[in-house]
């Protein structure tokens, strides 16, 4: 913005202000109406949606699949989509940090005098795309298949094993295809090619290193898991 533009803006603003109305009562009336609506909506949401507690926090459970509050869904989805381990820091901290810095410094790189959105095509397009992207990511994060399902092609005879894996919390520590967390446990995607079926069963029963023992699983489920995992090669 050139000094002449700044001067022109200030002069124009001065005129617009002179032709305006006093803050009190005109703007105050609108703001108070809005305040009543805001408080009303919050009370209505509280009455209708309530504040029910979930089950008490239990650090020993292995089956609970965490989900963030809805306004972090977009971040959650970025994390879910970006899988390669070397890119994870980029997704978790890199993208949000870059976005925040870009947002913070907006007035310092967008310095044109024009204010009408239809005459700032670049800024307006970028803004709309950002909103669409965040909206899409939030929606995708909200509707992403329940993390207690294994999302991969499984032959029908191994389906029960895949379901037991998904509902037993294995994916909290093991990566399985596109599912689950990469670590601390080893990846299970091709586990059948690396260790034999008997070793898989022993690992589940003993729980090597920091892995908890799943000895309590019924023998049937244990066999289903072992069938499924040893088929992965």
């Amino acid at each position, binding site marked *: 913005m050139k000094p002449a533009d700044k001067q022109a803006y*200030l002069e124009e603003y001065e005129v617009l202000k002179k032709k*305006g109305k*006093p803050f009190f009562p005109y703007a105050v009336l609108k703001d108070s109406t809005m305040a009543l609506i805001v408080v009303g909506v919050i009370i209505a949401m509280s*009455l209708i949606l309530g504040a029910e507690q979930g089950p008490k926090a239990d650090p020993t459970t292995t089956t609970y*699949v965490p989900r963030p509050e809805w306004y972090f869904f977009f971040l959650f989805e970025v994390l879910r989509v970006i899988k390669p381990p070397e890119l994870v820091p980029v997704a978790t901290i890199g993208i949000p940090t870059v976005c925040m810095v870009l947002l913070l410094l907006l007035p310092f790189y967008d310095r044109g005098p024009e204010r009408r959105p239809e005459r700032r095509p670049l800024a307006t397009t970028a803004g709309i795309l950002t909103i669409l992207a965040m909206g899409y990511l939030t929606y995708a994060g909200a509707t992403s298949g329940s993390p207690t399902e294994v999302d991969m092609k499984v032959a029908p005879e191994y389906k029960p094993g895949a379901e037991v894996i998904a509902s037993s919390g294995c994916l909290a520590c093991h990566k399985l295809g596109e599912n689950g967390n990469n670590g601390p446990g080893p990846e299970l995607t091709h586990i059948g090619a690396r260790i034999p079926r008997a070793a898989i069963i022993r690992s589940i029963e003993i729980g090597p290193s920091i892995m908890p023992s799943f000895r309590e699983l019924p023998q049937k489920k244990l066999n289903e898991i072992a069938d499924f995992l040893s088929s992965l090669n």
Partner: protein
Amino acid sequence: MPKFSDLLVPAPLRKTPKPGEAGVPNQPAPQDLKTDPPRRPTDHERLGQQALEAPTEGLAWVDQRLAASGFLTGMLYRKVPKGTNWFYTLGSAALFAFIVQAVTGVFLAMFYTPSTTQAYTSIAHINNDVFLGQLVHGMHKWGASVMVILVFLHMGRTFFFGAYKYPRELNWVIGVVILILTMTMAFTGYLLPFDQRSYWASIVGININGTGPIVGPYLSDFLRAGPELGATTLSRFYAIHMLLVPGALIALIGAHLYLVVKLGTTAPPWTKVDKPRVAEPTANLDAGVSSGNGYRPGGAGTIAGVQLETTDNDGMGPA
């Protein structure tokens, strides 16, 4: 019949009716003092008069010591530009959502215990036993969502109206920091009910911080306050949630509002200026609060003066 809102504007700021209009005679009636000598008020009347003036004098006493009346009238009766519409209420709506969070938060803090053994039961106690407890807890929980939405909408309005441009760049920066702090509040508050959902979501959140480059591991260590998420984590999140971030938020909201009053709110970018009316190039940054500018009793000599436009410019389009 004048509109109710017009009656709330003090007389010197009201649009002066032109001579010949209803209620204003063309010529002031000549007053002949000699025909009606002023009558001395009785003691009774004098006492009544003094009683009537007592509140005014009390206020004057306070104001002599605070010197706030100039600022207050300047702020209350400062002009908001032509074309100001409902989009401009989003900021104050976000502020009211924050106030709801602050008030409900205080009441929740009276009953909440930030310890791993008692947090869950104290929330259950709030929900089940405390008078209106579940309502207040629900308002705090859902008020967080409402506040996040309103802050984003307010930012969207500012962005698309180009309101972050000169001379309001710093207020945009403050606003973005307020957004980040709002999200911090949402994150730290999420752990406090200490149910499964909040516990595991916080573990994931802390681990996400830990994957960041260089500062990541330190940040997650700081948040976790120990090797495992536990009692120290909970009290640390609680302190951040109810002392550190709210304090910073209140300070930043204060600075944000100060700049709003000082620089004035923008007009919608489509609002047209009638060029011939630019008679006085009195561009001044501190037009808002400082006495003198923008707040002058309209009288002979002031161009456009301070007049009330009774037409509504509420639409978004060119007014």
